[in-house]
C-alpha cells in the first residue's frame, strides 16, 4: 500500500509495524467483546482528547478503497471532524463523504448516525476514559480484578445514587452497558439515546482511547444491554418537539440558542440525517423555506 507520492507519509500516517500492532489489539478486542485491550498508543499530530485513539484505530483499519466519514457530536462540519477528514485525505488519499450510507469507515465522537448502519461498515469511536468504573474505583489494579471476576455491583451504586438524588437515572451520556453478557463497557460519551443502536448492530464497532492506551470492540450482532434497576428501567432521552429544520421525530436533538431573549430551537444533531431529510422535502417549523415562515 503506497501513499500518494506527493504526501511524503506512509499510507494513513502510521508506519506498517504500528498498524500491525494496533490490528492485533483490535483482533483481540473483537475476540473478547467489551474487554479493554492495552496497546502501545502513539503520539499523533494532535493533542490528547482530540481523538488520538480513534485516529489510530481508523489508520489501522483503513484501506485504499475505503470511504471515510468523520463526525463530531453528530456533525460533519465541526473543526474536529473536518480536520480528521482532511488528515486522512492527505495521508491516505482515501475518498471521504458526509453521507452515512456511502461510508465504509465512520469515525465518530459522541454520536451514532441516525441512519441504520450496515454489515460492511465499521464505526470507530473516540474514547476519552475507557474504564466505566474509573470514577467509582480509582485503582487500575482493582478495576482490572473487578472485570476479571465480573464484580459489577459498584456500577449499580452509581445508578442508585442517581435515583436517590434525582428520582431517576440521571446519567445521560457514557451510560454503562454490558456487552455479550460479560464485560461492563463505557460506550464512550455518546448520549444514552444511542445505546439501543449498539445492541445487535450489523456494523463492527471499535473503540480507541489514545491517552489511556486501550482498544475495545463490539463485534457485529452482539448483545449490548444498558444497566438499570427492575423498578427503574433504562429509558432513552425524550424530546418534546421534532427537529425544527426537518421535522424528524425519534432522533437526537441539539439545542441551539438563537438570541439573548430565551429564543432557542432544537435541531437534529446528525447533520447528514437532517440534510438528507430536507433534500427529500421534509420541513420543520423553523425551516427558512417552510410555509409558515415564508414572507
Amino acid at each position, binding site marked *: 500500500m503506497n501513499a500518494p507520492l506527493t504526501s511524503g507519509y506512509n499510507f494513513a500516517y502510521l508506519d506498517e509495524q504500528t498498524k500491525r500492532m494496533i490490528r492485533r489489539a483490535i483482533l483481540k478486542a473483537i475476540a473478547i467483546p467489551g474487554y479493554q485491550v492495552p496497546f502501545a498508543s502513539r503520539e499523533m499530530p494532535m493533542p490528547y482528547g482530540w481523538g488520538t485513539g480513534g485516529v489510530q484505530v481508523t489508520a489501522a483499519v483503513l484501506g485504499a478503497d475505503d470511504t471515510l466519514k468523520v463526525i463530531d457530536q453528530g456533525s460533519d462540519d465541526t473543526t474536529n471532524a473536518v480536520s480528521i477528514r482532511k488528515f486522512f485525505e492527505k495521508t491516505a488519499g482515501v475518498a471521504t463523504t458526509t453521507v452515512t450510507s456511502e461510508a465504509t469507515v465512520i469515525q465518530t465522537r459522541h454520536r451514532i448516525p441516525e441512519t441504520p448502519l450496515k454489515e460492511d461498515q465499521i464505526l470507530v469511536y473516540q474514547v476519552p476514559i475507557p474504564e466505566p468504573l474509573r470514577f467509582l474505583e480509582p485503582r487500575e489494579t482493582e478495576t482490572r*480484578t473487578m472485570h476479571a471476576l465480573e*464484580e459489577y*455491583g459498584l456500577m449499580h*451504586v452509581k445508578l*442508585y*445514587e442517581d435515583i*436517590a438524588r434525582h428520582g431517576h437515572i440521571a446519567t445521560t451520556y457514557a451510560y454503562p452497558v454490558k456487552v455479550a453478557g460479560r464485560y461492563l463497557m463505557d460506550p464512550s460519551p455518546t448520549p444514552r439515546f444511542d445505546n439501543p443502536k449498539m445492541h445487535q448492530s450489523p456494523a463492527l464497532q471499535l473503540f480507541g482511547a489514545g491517552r489511556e492506551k486501550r482498544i475495545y470492540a463490539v463485534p457485529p450482532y452482539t448483545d449490548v444491554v444498558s444497566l438499570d434497576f427492575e423498578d427503574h428501567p433504562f429509558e432513552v432521552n425524550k424530546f418534546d418537539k421534532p427537529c425544527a429544520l426537518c421535522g424528524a421525530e425519534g432522533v437526537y436533538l441539539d439545542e441551539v440558542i438563537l438570541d439573548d431573549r430565551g429564543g432557542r430551537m432544537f435541531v437534529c444533531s446528525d447533520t447528514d440525517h437532517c440534510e438528507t431529510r430536507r433534500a427529500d422535502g421534509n420541513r420543520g417549523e423553523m425551516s427558512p423555506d417552510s410555509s409558515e415562515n415564508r414572507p
Partner: protein
Amino acid sequence: MSAARELPAAEMPELPLLSVDGLSKFYGARLGCIDVGFDLYPGEVLAIVGESGSGKSTLLSLLSGRLAPSAGRIRYRMRDGELRNVLGLTEAERRLLMRTDWGFVHQDPAQGLRMAVSAGANVGERLMAVGQRHYGDIRATATDWLGRVEIDSDRIDDAPRAFSGGMRQRLQIARNLVTHPRLVFMDEPTGGLDVSVQARLLDLLRGLVDDLGLSVVIVTHDLAVARLISHRLMVMRQGRVIEAGLTDQVLDDPREPYTQLLVSSVLQV
C-alpha cells in the same frame, strides 16, 4: 467491670466456624506473628488484645485474607457445612466470601466506607454486589439497617462526609451486616471515639451480635472493650499468643506477668 458475657451452654455448638492453626507471618527477617492457633465457634466473640506492635493487626489481616501468611492453616465452615481451607480458595471465591459471609469493620470508617456516595448506597452496595437489582427493595433494606444502627432515616441520602465519627462507624457496621454475614472482623472499632460514643457503639454491637448470632474476631488495645463485648480473649506480645482463655478468667486472674501488667495498667476512674 463484671459485665462479661457467657455463652448459654445449651446453645454451644460443637463445630467451629473458623479453625486456625500454626499461623505465622514474617516480614522478611522481622516477625509479624508466629504459631497462632484457635477455634472460633458460631456466635462467639473473640478479642485479641496487646500493645502496639504485638502482631494483632497482622493476625487480623491474615485471618481476613488481606495478607498471605508465611505458614499455617485457616479453615472456615461454609454455609453448606463443609470446612474449607480459606487460603486455598480462588480469588473470586475469597472476594465473594468477603462481601457476603464475612464483614470487616475498619478502625477508620473512611477506609471501610465510600465517602462520596450516600449512606443508602453504602449500605446497599453489598446487596447490589450479590445481584439485587430492585431499587425500592434495596432502599427499604438500607432504611431498615440505618434504623437498626440508630441513624435517622432522613439521613439516608447524606454522604458519610456529613456524619460524625460515631455515626460513620455505625454506618460502617450496617454496611457490613446487611448481607447477614456469619463472621465479622473488627479492627479497633471504637478507636478514636470519645467514651460516651464508644459506650453507645459497644451497646449497639452487643445487641447486634446477640440478635444475629454473629461470630466476631475483634482486635483492641482497650481491655474495657474486650471485657464488655468478648467471650474469649487472646493476649499477644511480640507476635506470640502468650495467654488465652475466657475473658473474665484472663482479666480477673491473669497468669502471665505481661498480662498482669496490662490489666494493672488500666486507669481506674
